């Protein structure tokens, strides 16, 4: 380009800006422009304003209160967060005495995806505790697994609110402790008979039991283990024992210590073997 115009005087940047300024639309353009502008003006005048169009103006008016509004928002979020956190995900309505009909509504507990338990309220196996420590008797019905060797009886779990330590009766022998003691007594009697026949020296079996850590733990369960008790279906003997009117209700007291939340959170593994169903907490 420059070579084409070497004989001509070149121009300055201001001259080029002047050329740029000369880029103007024709007069017809402005007629059309004015007409379109009037149309748009009228359209804007009759078009209803959306409610969110006023938001910036409203928010700009609240700008001076940004500190108190921000603080209130933070407090609200904090309050709601703590409230949500404290609310249990699984809520059980404990029936008042005399409201057994309301307790018949089945409750479905959401558990691990591979395992579903359905809880249906049933008649309490033992007599209900005093009103202050009412527990909801529920049955967790576990669908029978694929093995057909035996039909599993419904597993009974006593779940209820944690009760105060003062409400708990003094430690009483558990069914397993009673069973072990009975078995020990039988073995002791038989052993004594056999020993007398054979002329063996007499050894105190109770002392051997005390020396065995495993047996002593089973015989006298630790408090931490008591709360994890899961009972199988009561046998006839056991049902008879449970219906005894006198004495503290040990099973109910122990089972009541498993709160609903703990049950939901702590059931981790379920296994079935023969006629036995095991829940690991």
């Amino acid at each position, binding site marked *: *380009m*420059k070579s*084409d*115009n070497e*004989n*001509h*005087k*070149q*121009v*300055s*940047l*201001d*001259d*080029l*800006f*002047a*050329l*740029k*300024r*000369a*880029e*103007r*639309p*024709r007069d017809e*353009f*402005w007629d059309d*422009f*004015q007409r*379109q*502008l009037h149309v*748009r*003006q009228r359209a*804007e005048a009759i078009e209803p304003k959306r409610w969110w169009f006023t938001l910036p103006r409203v928010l700009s008016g609240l700008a001076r209160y940004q500190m108190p509004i921000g603080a209130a928002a933070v407090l609200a979020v904090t309050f709601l967060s703590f409230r949500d956190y404290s609310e249990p995900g699984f809520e059980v309505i404990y029936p008042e005495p005399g409201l057994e009909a309301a307790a018949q509504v089945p409750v479905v507990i959401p558990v691990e995806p591979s395992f579903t338990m359905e809880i249906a309220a049933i008649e309490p196996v033992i007599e209900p505790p005093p009103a202050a420590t009412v527990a909801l008797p529920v049955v967790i019905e576990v669908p029978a697994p694929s093995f057909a060797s035996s039909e599993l009886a419904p597993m009974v779990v006593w779940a209820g609110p944690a009760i105060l330590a003062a409400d708990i009766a003094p430690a009483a022998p558990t069914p397993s402790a009673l069973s072990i003691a009975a078995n020990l007594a039988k073995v002791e009697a038989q052993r004594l008979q056999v020993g007398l026949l054979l002329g063996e020296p007499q050894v105190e079996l109770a002392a051997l039991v005390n020396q065995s850590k495993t047996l002593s733990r089973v015989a006298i369960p630790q408090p931490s283990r008591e709360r994890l008790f899961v009972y199988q279906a009561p046998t006839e003997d056991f049902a008879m024992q449970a219906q005894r009117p006198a004495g503290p209700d040990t099973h109910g007291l122990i089972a009541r210590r498993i709160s609903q939340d703990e049950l939901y959170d702590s059931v981790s593994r379920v296994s079935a073997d023969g006629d036995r169903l095991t829940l690991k907490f």
Partner: protein
Amino acid sequence: MSVISKVFGKPLVSSDERRREADNDGAIVQRVQEGEVAAFDQLVLRYRERVYGVVYNMTSNREDAADLTQDTFIKAFKSINRFQGQSSFFTWLYRIAVNSALSHLRKSKLRTFFSFEKINEDDKTIEILAQLTDKHGADRELYVRELQEKLNEAMQKLSIKHRTVVTLFEIDGLSHEQIAEVVGCSVGTVRSRLHYAKQILQADLQSYLNT
């Protein structure tokens, strides 16, 4: 804009003229605010070409410029009741136009199409073109077209901020103070941006300019 100086090749409006315009604008704006909607047409007639020029030179697209100029006047009409008169009406209107153009440019950064207006050949432009070329007829038309493209390409190579300052100062003839008010920065920043932009343009249009 009645007083145009051709000494430096750009329009210059005297301060008296500006003051008279501002007083007149204030009276018209007051009438519009009182409900006389038709009075707004006087403001449109007065400023439409300047607003269009600013937007066109920022976008280098005449269709976009037409739409943005209409948007500018619609926005001004809708919010004229909020105009308090703290600045002159034309500064306020320019600010709306520049902000609309900037918003449009940011949204359509990746798709840029040029469509140019024809250069109106008045005495000044004919003189400049005669200095640039001795071609006539169709060749001259082609040459002018090529020059126009080069100019707009050089403008589009500038950043949006620099292009805005160059457009307002060199093409529309606003002062540094007025540009600072329209763009919302200091006068020093305006001067700095202008200096830098002119350096870039000078380098880019080297083949057409005296060095």
